[in-house]
């Protein structure tokens, strides 16, 4: 019935990346003069859909109908000509050009952009300043003003309020409302449920690459959106059997890892946590809530701006991953390519961080090395048929090699950052069983996983990050997916449950 007033109609979009299915059947309908929210948990396919709509990727199947005409965009420039402009999470501004040059680059009128910037609350911007000298929140507003200056009919805002102060965010909302009054449309992507219900008309919810529902976005419909994001079958089934008997944590022992008021960049604002020996602490968060910075800081990959990291009660100076490793903090990254030498053998990969201990100089003590590597490999049941070249192992086995190397060289705290990303269910279970086993043997584990349902399976306790801060903490028994999802969207989950 709304066919006539719909500006954009996307139907049955599918997109595969190799064997990974990003979108199965995505649909999205945006009316003229509507602010439409696009919602979904991690990996639901939001960003893929946005990139198809703006011409970054092309769809494998399905159609995009704009103004009643079937379209497909081969580049961002083509989408822009059709009136679809996106403001990405990382600003599309060239760092070594000035503000004015960037505007010329995108063929956007200067005066219009300045007018929009003033409206967005930035009125003292030096157009001759280089982008690289300008702080991140202002860059996002420049990007937004530039998008607005090209008078788009459909504006896509991807997490636009992240890193914006409250008053600037309010200016952005006012702008969005005015766009609606003028009959333009906005697609609004945000993890902040409160924002969505405040400014959006309707919401489309994606789950596992499928559009599972379109709903009213008014404040009362938050529960419905959460239910749609969760799906029906997941909420009921948490296989208790998979959970090991969780070790009891005595608070008298110094925590294996303690983080105090950590701040880093614009995403990690203020995080404190502690993990005791024998404990698995889960970290739940949607994309870009500071979890990556948190893990990188603890692992010594990135320097933090403020706060402290302590191991066994002692403050650490982390200038290099080697500092973290020697303090017993070891990282298992999501991207196994970052940790492993793909062309080399399992043995060499496992032995790599041990070289320091076995022999600082001179030849490698091959015998001692082999004994340790073999015990670690057999303990983890790594499939060694393809041991001569790591890249021939499956993702799950590669991840086990990463854990095996730390097992062989010894550690106190394991930092797992989304260790099961892109791994099959069977191996996933093995990895979580392994994590539990390591904890039972006295290790501390800090575990982030993008799949919230996995947290109660593997953890003793969970914290939820939102906007770079810890917003909730709960024992694993209460950390079901619905509770975590609510908290991760900035909803007061526990108080609601109590009420």
């Amino acid at each position, binding site marked *: 019935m709304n066919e006539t007033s719909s500006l954009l109609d996307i139907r049955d979009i599918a997109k595969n990346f190799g064997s990974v299915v990003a979108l199965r059947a995505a649909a999205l309908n945006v009316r003229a003069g509507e602010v439409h929210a696009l919602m979904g948990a991690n990996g639901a396919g939001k960003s893929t859909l946005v990139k198809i709509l703006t011409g970054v990727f092309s769809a494998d199947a399905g159609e995009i109908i704009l103004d009643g005409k079937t379209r497909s965009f081969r580049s961002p420039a083509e989408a822009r000509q059709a009136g679809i402009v996106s403001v990405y999470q990382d600003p599309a501004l060239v760092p070594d*050009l000035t503000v004015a040059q960037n505007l010329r*680059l995108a063929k956007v009128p200067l005066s219009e952009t300045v007018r929009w910037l003033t409206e967005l609350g930035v009125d003292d911007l030096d157009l001759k*300043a280089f982008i690289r000298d300008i702080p991140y929140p202002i860059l996002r507003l420049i990007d937004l003003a530039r998008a607005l200056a090209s008078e788009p009919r459909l504006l896509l805002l991807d997490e636009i309020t992240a890193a914006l102060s409250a008053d600037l965010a309010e200016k952005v909302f006012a702008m969005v409302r005015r766009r609606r009054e003028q009959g333009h449309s906005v697609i609004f992507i945000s993890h902040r449920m409160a924002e969505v219900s405040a400014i959006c008309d309707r919401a489309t919810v994606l789950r596992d690459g499928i559009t599972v529902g379109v709903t009213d976005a008014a404040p009362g419909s938050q529960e419905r959106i959460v239910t749609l994001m969760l799906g029906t079958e997941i909420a009921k089934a948490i296989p208790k059997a998979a959970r090991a008997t969780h070790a009891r944590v005595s608070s008298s022992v110094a925590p294996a890892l303690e983080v105090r008021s950590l701040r880093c960049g614009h995403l990690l604002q203020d995080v404190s946590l502690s993990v005791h020996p024998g404990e698995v602490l889960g970290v739940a968060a949607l994309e870009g809530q500071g979890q990556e910075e948190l893990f990188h800081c603890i692992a010594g990959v990135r320097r933090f701006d403020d706060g402290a990291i302590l191991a066994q009660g002692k403050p650490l100076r982390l200038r290099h991953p080697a500092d973290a490793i020697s303090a017993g903090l070891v990282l298992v990254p999501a991207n196994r390519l970052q940790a492993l030498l793909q062309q080399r053998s399992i043995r060499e990969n496992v032995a790599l961080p041990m070289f320091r201990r076995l022999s600082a100089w001179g030849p490698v003590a091959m015998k001692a090395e082999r004994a340790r590597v073999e015990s670690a490999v057999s303990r983890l049941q790594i499939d060694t048929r393809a041991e001569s070249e790591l890249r021939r192992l499956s993702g799950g086995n590669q991840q086990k090699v990463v854990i095996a190397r730390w097992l062989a060289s010894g550690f106190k705290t394991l930092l797992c950052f989304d260790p099961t990303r892109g791994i099959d269910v069977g191996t996933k279970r093995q990895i979580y069983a392994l994590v539990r086993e390591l904890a039972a043997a006295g290790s501390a584990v800090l575990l982030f996983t993008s799949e919230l349902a996995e947290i109660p399976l593997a953890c003793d306790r969970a914290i939820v990050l939102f906007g770079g801060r810890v917003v909730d903490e709960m024992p694993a028994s209460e950390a079901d997916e619905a509770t975590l999802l609510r908290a991760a969207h900035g909803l007061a989950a526990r108080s609601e449950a109590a009420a």
Partner: protein
Amino acid sequence: MSATMVGAPAPFRRFVGRHLAWVGMPALLILALAFTALIHPEFGSFDVQSLALGALPLAMAAAAQAVVVLSGGIDLSVGSLMAVSNVLAASTMQHASFTQSLLLAALILIAGALQGAANGIIVVISRIPDVVVTLTTGFIWGGVALLILEKPGGGAPPEFLDLAAGNLLSPWLPNALILLVVAVALIWLPVRRSRLGLLIYAVGSDRIAAFRSGVGIDSTRILAYIVGGLFSALGGLALTMTTGIGAPLAGTYYTLSSVAAIVIGGVRLTGGRGGMVGPVIAAVLLTLIPTDLIFLNIDPNYGQVIQGTLIVFVVMIGGFVAVLQSRK
């Protein structure tokens, strides 16, 4: 960085920061010339002339390298492209009239642009790293140069040579210097002032951001290689003018020296930052080093050692400054 500091550094600092090449490099050149005059009191118009002659081919090579590196690439075939254009000129102009040789020069410039285009197209289409592609094409063109002229020889009409070797206006203002300024300005200024210049800097600075701003990455990179090929061909013609002959192996020196000149001249090796004034003046400085060594009675072969040390230092200081800034 405070929230109120939406702009950038103070105006003076920004001026110096932005025009370091305009302020610093000429100052460095004047210092070097003063030093030369000090160790060689007879320093006169003849020395100015030979310096300009010596620097002309390298300055062109530096200009070629600068354009490509600014766009985020690198061209390791600069020397071979110069050699091809050098031997083409020397073998075809030997018995030509002045007008004919000018016509031939124009054709050679077109050939250079085409060679540059070939580099760019292969880099863009094959997705093979530019270092590998240009090293390989450089190898091929080096062979072609040897096919055209087996050993040093050939020549060009004296009027053609005088385009660089003479001094029309004053003995203190040799033609080579005028040719250098005019040629670089004629090619670079229109590029820099047009949309192409903006595109080259944008693509060299951040390819993804440029793509999302609607910039055609591939076409920009090819165009940068074309401008680079044009400058390389000019460098080859300059070699013909300054040496009077064609030498198939003369180009090899210029590939690495062109990289040295742009690094010393303030072009960032990863692209997007730098200009044309710095590399050209750096080319003159690099030419001055062996001369000064002779005046100081030091084996001029140390020139290469000094040149290499300078590159390491400049790159190291650049990296050090970047680290310091990121810690702020």
